[in-house]
């Protein structure tokens, strides 16, 4: 099993090298002629106003919040799924309770308008 992951580690390390290689090549050969107007932030051709790093709307947070909770729910379904066949009917009702409780969360988020883009 560790051998499998050794392969994955080699893939990640060699892969980062292969992604970085073209960047190195262009760092060596690409032309450089920077002047202030070129280094400005692109804003459809008009002079840039202020920074982009400002405050955004909270609605993005509500979606990622519901996402995190459901993502965590899903990790419990993976180990259940692989043994589902061996477990038999009783485990089905166990998992049904689990899913129903979490569906209540989805229903709550829906009714409270956390899933509305306003």
């Amino acid at each position, binding site marked *: *099993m*560790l051998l499998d*992951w*050794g392969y994955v*580690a080699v893939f990640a390390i060699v892969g980062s090298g292969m992604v970085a290689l073209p960047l190195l090549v262009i760092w060596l050969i690409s032309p450089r002629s920077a002047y202030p107007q070129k280094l400005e932030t692109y804003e459809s051709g008009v002079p840039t106003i202020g*920074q982009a*790093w*400002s*405050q*955004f*709307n*909270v609605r*993005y*947070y*509500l979606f*990622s*919040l*519901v*996402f*995190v*909770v459901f*993502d*965590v*729910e899903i*990790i*419990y379904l*993976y*180990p*259940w*799924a*692989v*043994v*589902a066949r*061996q*477990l038999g009917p009783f*485990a089905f009702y*166990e*998992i049904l*309770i*689990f899913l129903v*409780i*979490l569906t*209540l*969360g989805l229903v*709550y*988020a829906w009714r*409270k*308008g*956390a899933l509305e883009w306003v």
Partner: protein
Amino acid sequence: MIGEAIAFYMLAAITLLSGVVVVSSPNIVHSAVALVPAFLGVTGIYILLNAEFVAGVQVLIYAGAITVLILFVIMLTEGGTGLRLQQRNEQGTIGAVVAAAVAALLIAGATRTVWTPQPGTLATYTPGAIGQSFLGTNLLAFEGTSVVLLVSLIGAIIIARKED
């Protein structure tokens, strides 16, 4: 064996170095981004410990979900506008002393205790073993987590929503 040692020290170095960036970077976004290699290093540690499934979950939840949540909140609150504010409170020295003391205590405890291993072998197929465990012995904890998730979802929505 040698390979395991090399992997362990590399992963430990990655985790600790990015942990130091998380803790010390004056730029909050850099801290949040440095969490990703720290979490991935811990993932590698899990794999060395034969906990494949936990490793997968670590990437999915920590690196893929919690980091995104943290980045969202940074962008929704101060974004880059707080870059030049002081990030550290006046407890820097005393915090370092406390942290060093706790570290000394934990390391002393870990190195001096003799752990006696129990007989048995690790499960070869972790997802299956964990599934068996969740729907058998640990059923109550399994159903309990669903309630915890529901409650935290409701609580977080109530707190984060605009009052109207």
